[in-house]
């Protein structure tokens, strides 16, 4: 039987301090244009935590509104407020910066993460009030250090400073004196990624209503790498996050594929469960520090707030078929292969049309397509356009070519079968998976039959190949009942045995009569 989506967690961590000090656009600017206007002006474009929470796309991401409700909000979104916005949603939360720094400190296993004593004291109770934060995590938060010690570590270049409301409140120290793979910058990025994953795992467990002990395997599909000089991508983020989240019965591994990572990982998780190797698998993707403020220069130039102020994270729990949850159909997989080529019709054909055709379906049989779900509020001012819309146009064009749609239906396709983007530009985070939680709900509520999740990855950024990559899969209504209603192999054997017995008996009867 197909494996099912048991639950999911979607979290944002508001981290303007990390954005202003560690985002790659900002760190690059400090090198190439240290006296430029952007660095002088950017501080004025940081929005408050309250504004970040009241931002429509963020409320959709954590599950307080369906993407279809966002469609009705007039674009742009940054100057509109979500009424009665909440920190918590059915899928997760938007964690304030101070609490997130304490959570990240709890993820440190090598005494490299320092927070100032007073800062810890001031905010530990706030973290403790979070309903998903466990006693074990709180116990890992240390009492803190003297500010003078932190200042010394930062000023002599041994550590990256951590800033809260423009004040130095902590630092992340290098984990090796000369190994660049364990530098302070890398340790900071990796620990923040790990902490955001932990938060998403905790929310996914709550959403699915399962115990941490039920999880047997974790797959991390982020875009960070952890290791040392001899194995720079050794891993394993999955098991590291599982440890802090209290998944004591789980092992795990990392799966990578740039932004396509989550879709690959979801297929792997579904296959592991369907094969019976593990009963419950969690797919996790943590936040990406360098991408904070990535389009900030354009946002500042156009007088907008710097909208990339949150680390994104997700966790999806895939488990054995329970007879009711939405399931992953591994018979309908889209795949961009080495031989597919780069022509747009081949790309969309391999990911969308080919798998549907193999299953005897068309695009009209899929209620919603979830490709790259980047928030256009962030990408449009930066000149990158509306990414989800670009994908829907390509899918619709191919559907017309196939004769599945009339030309006149091109415009309405994106509204009927598409979604508006609402995910932060955190690389792998917006790639297909943000809609898995909503897809499960809508399918289980009988509002939808099928949703296609499409992941695409820019492999060429790693300079190992010029290829790009992509995979897709279908989430559908639970079919366990149909399968149970069908005749099993065992029953067929019994039927044949009975028929042969009856036949033998009838021959014996005929012989006796003769």
């Amino acid at each position: 039987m197909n494996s099912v989506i048991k639950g999911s967690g979607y979290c944002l961590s508001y981290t303007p301090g990390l954005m202003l000090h560690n985002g790659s656009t900002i760190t690059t600017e400090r090198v190439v244009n240290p006296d430029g206007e952007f660095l002088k002006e950017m501080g004025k474009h940081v929005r408050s935590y309250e504004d970040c929470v009241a931002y429509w796309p963020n409320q959709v991401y954590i599950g307080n509104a369906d993407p279809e409700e966002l469609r009705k909000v007039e674009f742009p979104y940054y100057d509109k407020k979500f009424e009665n916005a909440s920190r918590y949603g059915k899928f997760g939360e938007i964690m304030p910066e101070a609490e997130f720094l304490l959570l990240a400190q709890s993820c440190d296993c090598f005494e490299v993460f320092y927070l100032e004593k007073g800062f810890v004291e001031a905010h530990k109770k706030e973290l403790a009030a979070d309903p998903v934060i466990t006693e074990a995590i709180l116990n890992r938060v240390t009492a803190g250090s003297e500010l003078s010690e932190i200042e010394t570590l930062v000023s002599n270049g041994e550590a990256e400073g951590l800033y809260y409301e423009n004040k130095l409140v902590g630092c992340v120290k290098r984990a090796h004196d000369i190994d660049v793979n364990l530098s302070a910058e890398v340790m900071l990025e990796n620990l923040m990624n790990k902490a955001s994953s932990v938060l998403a795992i905790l929310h996914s467990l709550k959403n699915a209503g399962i115990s941490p002990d039920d999880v047997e395997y974790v797959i991390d599909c982020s875009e960070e790498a952890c290791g040392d000089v001899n194995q720079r991508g050794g891993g394993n983020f999955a098991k590291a996050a599982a440890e802090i989240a209290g998944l004591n019965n789980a092992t795990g591994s990392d799966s990578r594929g740039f932004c396509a990572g989550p879709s690959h990982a979801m297929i792997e998780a579904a296959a592991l469960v369907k094969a019976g190797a593990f009963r419950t698998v969690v797919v996790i993707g943590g936040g990406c520090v360098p991408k904070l403020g990535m389009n900030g220069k354009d946002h500042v130039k156009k007088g907008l707030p710097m909208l990339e102020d949150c680390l994104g994270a997700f966790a999806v729990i895939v488990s054995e078929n329970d007879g009711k949850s939405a399931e992953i159909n591994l018979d309908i997989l889209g795949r961009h292969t080495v031989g597919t080529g780069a022509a747009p019709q081949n790309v969309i054909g391999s990911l969308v049309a080919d798998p549907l055709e193999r299953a005897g379906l068309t695009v009209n049989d899929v209620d919603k397509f979830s490709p790259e779900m980047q928030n256009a509020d962030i990408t449009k001012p930066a000149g990158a356009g509306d990414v989800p819309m670009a994908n829907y146009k390509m899918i619709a064009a191919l559907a017309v070519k196939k004769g599945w749609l009339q030309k006149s239906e091109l415009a309405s396709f994106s509204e009927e079968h598409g979604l508006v983007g609402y995910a932060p530009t955190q690389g792998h985070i917006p790639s297909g998976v943000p809609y898995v939680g909503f897809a499960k709900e809508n399918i289980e509520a009988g509002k939808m039959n099928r949703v296609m999740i499409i992941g695409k990855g820019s492999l060429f950024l790693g300079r190992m190949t010029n290829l790009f990559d992509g995979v897709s899969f279908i989430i559908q209504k639970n079919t366990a009942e149909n399968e149970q209603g069908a005749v099993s192999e065992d029953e067929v054997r019994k039927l044949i045995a009975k028929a042969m017995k009856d036949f033998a008996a009838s021959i014996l009867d005929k012989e006796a009569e003769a």
Partner: protein
Amino acid sequence: MSILKGKKVVIIGDRDGIPGPAIQACVESAGGEVVFASTECFV
């Protein structure tokens, strides 16, 4: 199509739009000379 004939062309394709190699094939078929082609990710 003759607007590209004999011209040197620099191509920057978009992963979520038209990839570089696809534009390159079109340019070459129209007689243009591609001096640089790449596909970029804008997100």
